[in-house]
């Protein structure tokens, strides 16, 4: 292989830049550690029985579902590789047992996975009744720690947080345990770790309690220096694997194997994922673009690594003035070897990149530019050499602020990322994202590497979206119905305010996600999660022509109703519209039908109650009337029949009164009252004198009526209140039970009249008592005691309409006391 000097300089420069680029994101030793762990693991011997060995031989490959997004416990790296704690343990197990785990992305509903194993279970009881059962030995245990601002004083323990505000995961067990064990702590519930860290930083909360391993990892990967571990709590979290329940033998083998893993090995895995920041922090764009400069060179380098190594060594020796030390070169080489796998992947990425790359000196004068630069700008390398690219590319529409920022960055020799308008050689305008990194090369010289990405299309697209977004926002924000809009890619592109208000799900947490993610959120908030159906699931059961209807130029499904438990108890009705539009694939509507559902419920209760309460007396009335008309009876029987008709007609009439009154009072309130001045004494007298309850000869016993001035009340309605209370008192008293009525005055700003109505009857238990003001609730469900279950509702409504109150005290088998309190208003405004 021949390298001319020019190429070689670039090559050296490239390696240096590469190292610099990689070290931007403090390199992990991940690959290395894996190898080390693997070698040691192979030395482990598990004591397997003959039967177990045979079983393993018969099952050399075992499928396992791995979850994503649980960094660092387990996650998917770069969309293609599983990594994390559990993966390292699986690798160990593979070596120990000579089997292979075929990893698959897990279904979020763990029980629904059709694999032989699950690699990560945090909530063991949730597996109950599924095909999986968790191992008894956790592969990882993490303390639950308290995190505060680094500057915060050191805590002694969790008790120091009493009276403080603490962030915890909404769904985790810690929130539950803290609420039980430390009710003195004010919990601030969050969805994601970043939200909690943010709350700590802004001082919204005093601390964040959570899984130490995970939080430390998040802190490191976010380069968050403000928040730090403070002290441990007594709690801990365990992570388990799970196996098909019908494979107890594999479970036994794995338990055994996990227990065989030594403390040292555990510590190594722990170290690997806790002490090291992850490779994803590498500045890929930079690295990728550098590779793009001489992709060919690199490829050859990897293929003929050995030859190149010698070449490098020789050159290094020869050009020792160029390279500061041989050690450095070896380090570079070692790093490259270590990362060759990652680089291969990066090389793949670079192949497809169209980014242009320019390298300049510290004054910004071009030393080198790649072909993509020529393609993008129209300027050749010769045209741009020794000139500032900006002078060629910037034009009249380029923002002067952007140019100033670029100059400042050049002066201060610092990195900058900026979006601005550039011009091609032919005068054509385009938008570019310019990313400039300031680096020092191996000779201590200052260089800028500038990567340009043409973003004209994106900018134009965003502009159209923004324009439309404004229209949409205006429309959606005034809609009382919740709306979720999916874009052409079936991702959530818009969520309106009504939806946020209904579900508490924030727009920023939803936009960009799939419809299935939305389903997961909603399902979790449902009263009956099992009954929640996604649009597709519902479409399957509702896939009949009559379940669909046309709407505009789209097809819509009939409404699906479900009940939310959290954050509000709501009944929502979901419908959706599919469109053929370019940007919107589907609009999902959520209508709050809670009020309607309550009314529907009431209606059906009413139909049942009214059916019994009205149809039964009507049977007697209709029956006797018909018999009297068609047949002849003795006089005695005739009289009995007519009396029955009369009694039952009265009952029906009073039931109808109740119903109408409830309806009127509902539509409420003081407006419907006829407030007039009345004298108290004659009013009460007329009621107690005339009140007769069939089957009880005892009259109401009334001690005295206080002397008061006339005051305002609706006499007809208030009479109904007292009548209803008296009727109840008699209804639930034994044959000759006494009913007492007491009146007295209460001292307050507006003097109040208190009326107690007391019986010594069957009384009510606390459950019955607590439901007494519910519509259609009847303590006696037998139908023996007639009534609609509206009497006390009416009492309460009328009292409240008067600005009064009602209290009921009751004891089973001892009796009930109702106290009515009525303000005595001597004037009305």
């Amino acid at each position, binding site marked *: 292989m021949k390298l001319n000097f020019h190429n070689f300089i670039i090559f050296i420069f490239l390696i240096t830049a590469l190292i610099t680029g990689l070290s931007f994101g403090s390199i992990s030793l991940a690959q290395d550690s894996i190898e080390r762990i693997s070698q040691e693991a192979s030395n482990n011997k598990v004591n397997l029985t003959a039967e177990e060995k045979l079983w393993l031989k018969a099952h050399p490959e075992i499928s396992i579902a791995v979850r994503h997004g649980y960094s660092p416990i387990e996650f998917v790296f770069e969309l293609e590789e599983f990594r994390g704690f559990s993966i390292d343990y699986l690798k160990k197990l593979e070596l120990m047992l000579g089997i292979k785990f075929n990893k698959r992305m897990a279904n979020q509903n763990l029980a629904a996975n059709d694999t032989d194993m699950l690699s990560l279970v945090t909530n063991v009881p949730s597996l109950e009744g599924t095909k999986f059962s968790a191992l008894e030995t956790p592969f990882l245990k993490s303390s639950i720690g308290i995190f505060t601002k680094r500057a915060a004083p050191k805590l002694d323990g969790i008790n120091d947080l009493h009276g403080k505000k603490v962030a915890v995961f909404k769904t985790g067990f810690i929130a539950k345990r803290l609420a039980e064990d430390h009710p003195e702590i004010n919990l601030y519930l969050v969805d994601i770790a970043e939200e909690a860290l943010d709350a700590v930083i802004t001082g919204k909360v005093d601390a964040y309690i959570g899984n130490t391993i995970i939080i430390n990892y998040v802190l490191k990967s976010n380069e968050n220096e403000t928040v730090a571990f403070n002290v441990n709590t007594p709690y801990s979290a365990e992570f388990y694997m799970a196996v098909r329940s019908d494979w107890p033998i594999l479970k036994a083998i794995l338990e055994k194997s996990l227990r065989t893993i030594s403390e040292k090995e555990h510590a190594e895995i722990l170290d690997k994922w806790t002490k090291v920041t992850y490779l994803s922090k590498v500045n890929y764009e930079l690295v990728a673009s550098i590779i793009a400069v001489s992709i060919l060179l690199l490829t050859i380098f990897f293929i003929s690594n050995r030859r190149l190594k010698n070449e490098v060594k020789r050159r290094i020796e020869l050009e020792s003035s160029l390279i500061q030390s041989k050690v450095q070169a070896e380090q570079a080489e070692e790093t490259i070897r270590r990362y060759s796998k990652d680089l291969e992947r990066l090389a793949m990425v670079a192949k497809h990149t169209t980014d242009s790359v320019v390298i300049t000196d510290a004054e910004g004068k071009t030393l080198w530019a790649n072909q993509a630069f020529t393609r993008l700008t129209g300027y050749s390398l010769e045209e741009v050499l020794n000139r500032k690219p900006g002078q060629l590319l910037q034009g009249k529409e380029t923002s002067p602020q952007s140019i100033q920022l670029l100059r400042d960055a050049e002066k201060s020799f610092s990195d900058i990322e900026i979006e601005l308008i550039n011009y091609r050689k032919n005068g054509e305008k385009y938008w570019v994202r310019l990313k400039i990194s300031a680096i020092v090369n191996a000779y201590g010289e200052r260089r800028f590497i500038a990567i340009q990405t043409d973003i004209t299309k994106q900018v134009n697209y965003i502009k159209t979206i923004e324009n439309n977004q404004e229209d949409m926002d205006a429309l959606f924000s005034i809609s009382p119905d919740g709306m979720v809009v999916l874009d052409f890619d079936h991702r959530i592109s818009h969520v309106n305010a009504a939806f946020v208000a209904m579900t508490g799900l924030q727009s920023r947490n939803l936009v960009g996600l799939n419809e299935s993610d939305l389903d997961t959120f909603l399902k979790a908030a449902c009263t009956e999660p099992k009954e929640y159906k996604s649009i597709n699931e519902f479409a399957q059961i509702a896939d009949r022509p009559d379940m669909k209807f046309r709407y505009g130029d789209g097809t819509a499904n009939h409404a699906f109703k479900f009940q939310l438990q959290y954050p509000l108890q709501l009944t929502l009705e979901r419908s959706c519209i599919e469109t053929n539009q370019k940007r919107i694939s589907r609009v999902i509507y959520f209508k709050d039908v809670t009020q309607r559902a309550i009314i529907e419920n009431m209606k059906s209760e009413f*139909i049942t109650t009214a059916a019994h309460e009205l*149809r*039964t007396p009507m*049977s*007697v009335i*209709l029956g*006797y009337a018909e018999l009297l008309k068609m047949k002849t009876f003795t006089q005695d029987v005739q009289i009995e*029949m007519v009396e029955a008709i009369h009694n039952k007609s009265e009952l029906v009439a009073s039931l109808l009164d109740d119903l109408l009154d409830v309806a009127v009072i509902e539509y409420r309130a003081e407006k419907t009252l006829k407030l007039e001045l009345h004298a108290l004494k004659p009013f009460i007298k007329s009621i107690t004198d005339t009140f007769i309850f069939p089957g009880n000869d005892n009259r109401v016993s009334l001690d005295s009526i206080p002397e008061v001035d006339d005051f305002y009340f609706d006499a007809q309605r208030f009479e109904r209140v007292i009548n209803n209370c008296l009727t109840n008192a008699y209804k639930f008293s034994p044959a000759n039970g006494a009913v007492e009525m007491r009146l007295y005055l209460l001292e307050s700003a507006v003097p109040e009249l208190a009326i107690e109505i007391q019986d010594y009857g069957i009384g009510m238990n606390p459950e019955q008592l607590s439901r007494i003001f519910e519509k259609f609730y009847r303590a006696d469900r037998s139908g023996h005691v007639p009534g609609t279950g509206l009497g006390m509702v009416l009492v309460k409504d009328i009292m409240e309409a008067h600005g009064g109150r009602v209290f009921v005290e009751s004891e089973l088998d001892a009796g009930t006391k109702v106290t009515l309190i009525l303000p005595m208003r001597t004037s009305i405004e």
Partner: protein
Amino acid sequence: MHKVLIVDDQADIRRMMNIALGEDFDLLEAEDGLTALDMVRQHRPDVVLLDVMMQGGLDGLQVLEKIRADPRLKHTRVILVSAKGQVSDYDLGMQMGANAYFVKPFSPLQLLAAINEQIAQLKIDN
């Protein structure tokens, strides 16, 4: 005379049926489901007039279910007399083995005719 058992927890209704049917049948009365079932087993009425919503113990449909489950009572004709008047209530009652379904309020003379019809059917079956 054919035996007819009236099952209803409301005395008013039982009395009204008594006046309407007393001349034509040998009447028995029960005010709850358990008593009704006992009387069906003991007295073997030809026709049972069965209320559906009753307090405590068994409701009408449960009584019906038990009658239909007992092979010795297979000839017993059951007429449901219910305050529940929706089509679904009717369908459920008939599905569970009722021979006829009356919704309250009902015509006592039509009920009389229906009982006679059931007795005629009973004779054909035998």
